[in-house]
């Protein structure tokens, strides 16, 4: 087994752990480990910028936000009575789906990838600033929308 496949397996195992763990703190930590493994995969695939963003934002910022939220809502967590049997069925369903996907996905894989592709020698900076400058404007709009949404949710009684 190559390092790449091992790391991909690690992402799925910890992702499933984040979905299945009984404690929400364990869910958050498991999700952070999955994010770290994904960032290592991205580094290994030759995508360092995406890896850095994944490591700092997803494994760092989102984990902090998630654990902070868990500490706030922890008393309410106990009142959510969930059927654990459905959680235990998840790995079985995932294994069946994986088997079916592995057996029948080859036509999809060959159909979606064109035979001849034009390779680009442009750097990440050139693509980001020259070709897809609209994305940066969109990202700024998203940040503004997020800040306004959080501000609206925590609006005080005296605010208009």
């Amino acid at each position, binding site marked *: 087994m190559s390092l*790449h496949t091992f790391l991909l397996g690690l992402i799925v195992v910890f992702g499933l752990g984040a*979905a299945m763990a009984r404690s929400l703190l364990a869910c958050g930590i498991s999700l952070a480990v999955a994010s770290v493994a994904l960032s290592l995969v991205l580094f290994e695939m030759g995508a360092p910028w995406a890896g850095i963003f*994944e490591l700092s934002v997803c494994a760092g910022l989102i984990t902090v936000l998630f654990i902070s939220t868990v500490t706030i*809502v922890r008393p309410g967590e106990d009142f959510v009575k969930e059927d654990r049997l459905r959680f235990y069925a*998840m790995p079985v369903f995932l294994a069946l789906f994986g088997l079916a996907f592995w057996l029948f*996905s080859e036509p999809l894989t060959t159909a979606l990838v064109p035979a001849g592709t034009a*390779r680009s020698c442009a750097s990440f900076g050139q693509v980001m600033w020259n070709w897809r400058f609209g994305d940066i404007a969109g990202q700024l709009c998203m940040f503004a929308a997020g800040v306004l*949404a959080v501000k609206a*949710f925590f609006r005080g009684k005296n605010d208009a």
Partner: protein
Amino acid sequence: MPDNIMCLLPVNWFFAALLFVSGICCMLVSRNMLRLVIGVELIAKGCLLAIIASGQALGNMALAQSIAVTAIVVEVVVVAAGLALIVRAYARTGTVDIWKFDKLKG
């Protein structure tokens, strides 16, 4: 196209699909709103892996990375707004059970 990259593409897409489906399963089986956010995160991770794997296979990694960075920004804003909504809803109702939020039901 190098052979090793083309050999890795089905493997990458396989694991991306597994992450996507595990996120959907997480959202389907749970009543806890925080687990719904975890499901969204897992789906976003699967999409990110698929984007980078496709960029690697097509030989256009710079474009794939720029799209991935945009996707990460969208993801973090969605998660931050979702968590803020959960905290606000908990402060108002004292629970994070999605089944208890039926006031808007028609």
